[in-house]
């Protein structure tokens, strides 16, 4: 599949519709510099097909959808334009902040090269329909999954999302809660055998999760030592009110693979009652 369309089909890009802006950020030296991938501003419906003459195919490697309108526009463009579908087929990074529950159903087959998936900022409302989990299997090449600012119905939903990506190497769970189910049910769902037989994580980040989720996810991931034994980067914040047993479990499993580690801990005397599951009230900020 060629990357460039025939020249006669290319329309010029109106200057008022396209603006390439520098993407300032503070680099290692402390100053600002332009990112190699400049931030491109254009009207989606009009200009998605026009990405071709810009020869900025790389820009399609990452897509961020921030609203339902964006989602609808992109899906409509994909339906109407072969060129858009061709570009979507090159996409490697998808960051979705809205309408995520329909994302795999709509874009599943359009994004065969997707490697990084970010589900963020309340992009789904619990409970999640089972079709979502089933359709996630259409992204077999995903190696990096980030979930942040999500409210899920229960721990099973969290587990069902993660377990759909057998090639996952980087997993980030940030500010994820399960408010609709008592936390003690998590223990029951953890007891199920781990389905992650092929998953080999290299990086694990858990921050701002409920204590129950934090402990649940660690127990679940470490149920199969193969899942975590290659982790070289580990970041886990959130030990408030509990001992270090779960952290220790991770440190033991990661063993010699661990190179970079960030943990928080409670300065005090170890608690022996590590097995007691906290109550659902731990969704409050003090427990995060």
């Amino acid at each position, binding site marked *: 599949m060629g990357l460039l369309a025939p020249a006669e089909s290319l329309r010029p890009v109106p200057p008022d519709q396209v603006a390439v802006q520098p993407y300032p950020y503070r680099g290692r030296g402390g100053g600002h510099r332009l990112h190699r991938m400049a931030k*491109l501003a254009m009207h989606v419906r009009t200009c998605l097909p026009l990405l071709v003459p810009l020869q900025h195919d790389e820009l399609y490697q990452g897509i961020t959808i*921030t609203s339902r*309108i964006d989602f609808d526009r992109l899906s409509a463009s994909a339906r109407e334009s072969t060129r858009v579908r061709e570009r979507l087929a090159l996409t490697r990074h998808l960051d979705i902040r809205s309408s995520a529950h329909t994302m795999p159903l709509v874009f599943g087959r359009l994004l065969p090269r997707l490697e990084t998936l970010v589900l963020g900022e309340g992009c789904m409302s619990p409970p999640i329909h089972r079709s979502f989990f089933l359709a996630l299997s259409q992204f077999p090449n995903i190696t990096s999954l980030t979930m942040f600012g999500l409210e899920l119905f229960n721990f099973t939903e969290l587990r069902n999302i993660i377990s759909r990506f057998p090639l996952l190497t980087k997993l980030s769970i940030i500010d994820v809660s399960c408010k609709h189910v008592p936390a003690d049910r998590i223990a029951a769902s953890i007891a199920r055998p781990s389905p992650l037989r092929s998953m080999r994580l290299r990086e694990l980040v858990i921050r701002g999760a409920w204590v129950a989720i934090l402990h649940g996810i660690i127990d679940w991931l470490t149920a199969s030592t193969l899942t975590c034994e290659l982790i070289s980067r580990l970041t886990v*914040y959130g030990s408030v009110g509990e001992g270090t047993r779960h952290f220790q479990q991770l440190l033991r499993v990661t063993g010699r693979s661990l*190179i970079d580690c*960030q943990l928080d801990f409670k300065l005090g005397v170890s608690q022996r009652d590590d097995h007691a599951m906290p109550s659902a009230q731990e969704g409050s900020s003090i427990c995060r």
Partner: protein
Amino acid sequence: MPIDHFDFRPNTKLRTLRLICHDPLMMHWPLLLRTLEDQLQSLQSAHLQRVSFDFQMNVDTLVRLGPFPDSLDPSSVHKAQNGEMLLRVSELGIHLSIVPGSPPVCERSSPLHEDPSSTRELVEKTAAAGLRTIFAPFDARGALRITTEVYEGETTSKFYSGASSTPLSVEDNVSLADASSAGVPEEPPSHVLIGQLARTVEA
């Protein structure tokens, strides 16, 4: 009773370590000394190059902590900082994040230390000085770096969710590595920002 700490003995290839220490209610010098000693002991077999301890506490905790007591013997923790570790670790960073006010169960704040400058002075006289005593071998080698950050937030819980309080001042420069480890991305995402695109053009 055992002290709450991590055992890094299985992690022999560990090169970078950052530990965030909280729970100001339990913070006092003997406990801190023993915890740090246990932590350093468990790191003897690791290939550490950079170590960072972040202490997050309220002003009242700082007041209660006070100066490092003369009666406390730091020789055992000095011993844990043996020659091999001193050679390997190029930087031992300690970051003190101070939030005005009291821990949740304390009754009131310390009005004398609500001013950031006096808080900084208090930090220097108590926590920073004490930690320099504990890490004297690293300090003597020039590998110890202590930074202080005074927040105007209300509780330490803000640290954990990543929602930052507003720092009033930061002493010493925090390197990018610190920023990165705190969740600041080194590279911006290369996205087609669809939502922003539509808004930009429609505007």
